[in-house]
């Protein structure tokens, strides 16, 4: 039954996609006579998008056309700080009390040849003896080496590969290349998905299986506004005993192929993609599935629309972090600048979540409820911004969002949030008041069914040296109050005052200070628990390339209840140099 339904769904989707693509291709073909080959800038921008690095710059050689130009930028920071904590690991991230050293370095070297070819090398790393910052003494943040010629690019290292929504959209550590043959763009990437560079060398540092991956993409523009593309990708987990023992997971492999298109003309855009995949977990049978997405948008001067349909099968698997499998959603949203004092935005959608329904193929008992997430939901939201023209600086904001869902096997899963606010600013003064209200009801997680109400208000003032803006000073006083009433009868709440002060002087540098003091209502005893803290930082430039900053923070929470009381304190100084 499920196979038949899937087949029907696939056939229908294919026909729909074909129906969309055909007229678009025809129309684009009619304009093909106006096509202009992509210039260097376009190519470079595309490369930047694909490689995730800043696009190479074509630099005119200062000494004539036969010169080569080398650019070197970099930065280094060093922090020396002391930490102190009380309350244990569960509530405070401080690992150990004492003094720590953390240094970060990043550098980028680019060489532009006489023919415009560009080579670059980028590396960034963190060194620290503070295990709350990095787990090991050294971490390579990013590393990449590459070369860009007139019609080809290659990069080795950290390469974000953004080929398509259903195909490949992830970061890999490996080799990426692309090149143009005529107007056809070919892209390929191969590498591993790994936690860190260090984890590639050391199995013990892996929290997941290292995933060997590859992907190809071919993209063909047709006319000025239309492009069609195909992608092919696959992966295979490196099986290792340490990760198996650590996670309890079996390694998996999979592959996927997708076809897609993009069309844009004026303010209208349309894009769609369909994909089929195979996924296999070691020791289990192979699963095949498909996915379809189509999105359209139109943006006028005052009105904009966006709508789309996404349908990704539960077992659809690819290299794209965007392809959340098991979700089917149809949506429409709009934004409208109705007048010069009123703007509205709205969103309407229907969602089905296959991940909330137990699959029949598992062959063993599952929890009931299977998940606390809605299997199906209808949602809408509406927002309005109103500018009161009669009173300069006064504006109102309203928003409401609601989702009415149903869990697997019945039972409500409803949520709503409302907010209203007014703000006013004039002559350096600013003030505002806002109200929030939220309702949550879920038959599968009834312990958290609750209603939450809150309000906050603030008053601020800014001063600035009028003549040339050589100094400025600002302060804001904020009060907020929030109460949550659970259906179980428990009640918690919080109220807090916060004062912040910040200033900047062209010669002496800048500072910021924040103090807060609040009380939290313990739902189990009704007791009010104190929570207070302070943060301060001040810094100034040293010469043209350097700066120094000192900082201090302290947070004391819930001293009246021993099992959750915690305190954390940090005092440090930072030196920074960038060139």
């Amino acid at each position, binding site marked *: 039954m499920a196979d038949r339904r899937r087949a029907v769904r696939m056939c229908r989707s294919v026909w729909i996609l074909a129906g969309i693509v055909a007229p678009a291709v025809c129309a684009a073909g009619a304009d093909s006579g106006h096509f202009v080959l992509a210039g260097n800038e376009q190519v470079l921008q595309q490369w930047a998008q694909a490689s995730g690095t800043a696009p190479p710059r074509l630099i005119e050689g200062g000494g004539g056309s036969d010169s080569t130009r080398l650019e070197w930028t970099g930065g280094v920071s060093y922090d020396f700080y002391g930490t102190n904590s009380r309350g244990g690991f569960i509530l405070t991230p401080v690992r150990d009390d004492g003094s720590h050293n953390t240094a970060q370095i990043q550098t980028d070297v680019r060489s532009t040849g006489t023919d415009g070819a560009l080579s670059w090398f980028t590396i960034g790393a963190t060194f620290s003896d503070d295990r709350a910052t990095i787990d090991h003494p050294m971490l390579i943040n990013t590393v990449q080496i590459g070369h860009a010629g007139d019609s080809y690019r290659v990069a080795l290292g950290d390469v974000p590969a953004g080929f398509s929504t259903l195909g490949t959209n992830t970061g890999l550590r490996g080799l990426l290349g692309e090149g143009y043959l005529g107007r056809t763009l070919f892209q390929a990437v191969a590498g591993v998905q790994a936690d860190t560079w260090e984890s590639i060398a050391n199995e013990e540092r892996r929290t997941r299986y290292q995933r060997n991956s590859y992907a190809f993409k071919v993209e063909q523009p047709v006319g000025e506004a239309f492009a069609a593309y195909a992608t092919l990708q696959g992966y295979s987990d490196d099986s290792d005993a340490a990760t198996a023992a650590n996670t309890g997971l079996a390694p998996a492999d999979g592959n996927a192929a997708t076809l897609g298109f993009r069309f844009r003309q*004026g303010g209208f855009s349309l894009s769609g993609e369909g994909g089929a995949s195979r996924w296999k977990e070691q020791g289990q049978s192979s699963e095949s599935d498909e996915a379809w997405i189509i999105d359209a948008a139109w943006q006028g001067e005052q009105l904009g629309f966006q709508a789309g349909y996404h349908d990704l099968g539960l077992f659809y698997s690819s290299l794209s972090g965007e392809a959340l499998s098991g979700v089917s959603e149809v949506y429409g949203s709009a934004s409208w600048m109705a007048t010069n004092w009123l703007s509205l935005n709205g969103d309407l959608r229907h969602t089905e979540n296959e991940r909330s329904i137990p699959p029949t193929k598992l062959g063993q008992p599952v929890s009931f409820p299977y998940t606390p997430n809605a299997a199906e939901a209808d949602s809408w939201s509406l927002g309005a911004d109103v500018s009161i023209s009669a009173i300069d600086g006064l504006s109102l904001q309203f928003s409401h969002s609601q989702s009415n869902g149903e869990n697997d096997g019945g039972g409500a899963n409803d949520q709503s949030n409302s907010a209203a606010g007014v703000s006013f600013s004039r002559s350096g003064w600013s003030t505002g008041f806002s109200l929030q209200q939220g309702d949550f009801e879920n038959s599968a997680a009834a312990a958290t069914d*609750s209603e939450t109400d809150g309000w906050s208000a603030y008053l601020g003032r800014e001063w600035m040296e009028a003549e040339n803006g050589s100094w400025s000073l600002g302060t804001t006083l904020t009060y907020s109050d929030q109460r949550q009433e659970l259906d179980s009868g428990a009640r918690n709440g919080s109220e807090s005052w916060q004062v912040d002060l910040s200033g900047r002087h062209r010669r002496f540098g800048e500072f910021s200070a924040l103090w807060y003091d609040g009380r939290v209502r313990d739902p189990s005893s009704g007791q009010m628990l104190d929570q207070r803290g302070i943060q301060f930082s001040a810094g100034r430039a040293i010469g043209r390339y350097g700066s120094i900053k000192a900082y201090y923070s302290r947070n004391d929470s819930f001293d009246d209840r021993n099992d959750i009381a915690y305190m954390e304190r940090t005092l440090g100084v930072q030196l920074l140099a960038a060139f």
Partner: protein
Amino acid sequence: MISSDYRYRTATSILLALVTTGIAAQGVPRDENPLPPASEIKGIGASPTTPAPGAATGAFEDVQQARDALEELLRAYETGNIAKFQQLLDPSMVGYQVFLNGVRRDVAAYRNLRIHLTDTQITAGPDLAVIQTAWEKRFLAAGDFTPGIVTGRSSVLMHRDGKAWRLSAVALDNPFSSASGVLARLTVTPMAISEVALTDGAPVGVEVRDADMAGVETVTVTVSTANGDRETLRLPSATPGLFRILTVPIQVDPAPATPNNGLVEVPGPGNVTFRYVDPNPGNDRPPTTLTRVMRVL
């Protein structure tokens, strides 16, 4: 549940409307400033087709801006500012409503929520940034202020939208939304035990830490042995997302086992297998069975 017919009728109607609009748009005069032929097409409010001014030269700036945008998302999540969080999402994001409903569920279930990032690695370009990070989410349960912690590792994809960075997707474990997947941890203690100790009544504990299941009262773990015994354990919730039994009913019995009698019967030395089905393990995996084996020596 709405039938699949209704689902397809709705989808078909909307798609037909899109097709009609698309065909109608073909009649629009040719754009005087056409985009590059192979450029990325983005919806309203999505990434532009060209890098933002200044972005081409500042790799450090890109890294810092991407990090700041992620921090802004984290602060909106921690403070339960749903309206702000919603503004930072792209409506065309796959699984938008599942993601948002998960955030709302977390806001109702947790208090004093704080997320701490470690091992953060950022690769940023003009329009695309990949942030790989490990995270620790600390909280108090809304009902009784029991402290809890969930950990994971994420790969966050962000796209530049005009001058701002917006969340595009979260791969691996999702720190923001319990509905979007975090790999569960199944722990059995001890991992190995002697037959004598088992006979003497040494405790065997089993624990499931699954943030996606925060709020439910129990989860199910199945146990199987070499002599064909198969039992279903219901682990009660200790804190949101943490379920455990400190003493599993287990005994050494060489006689043929009786499945589903509430007692795990071990014939002697061998393996006892514990299995938990994680419905939403993250990393775009379908429902996955986690397995732990306890050796009886």
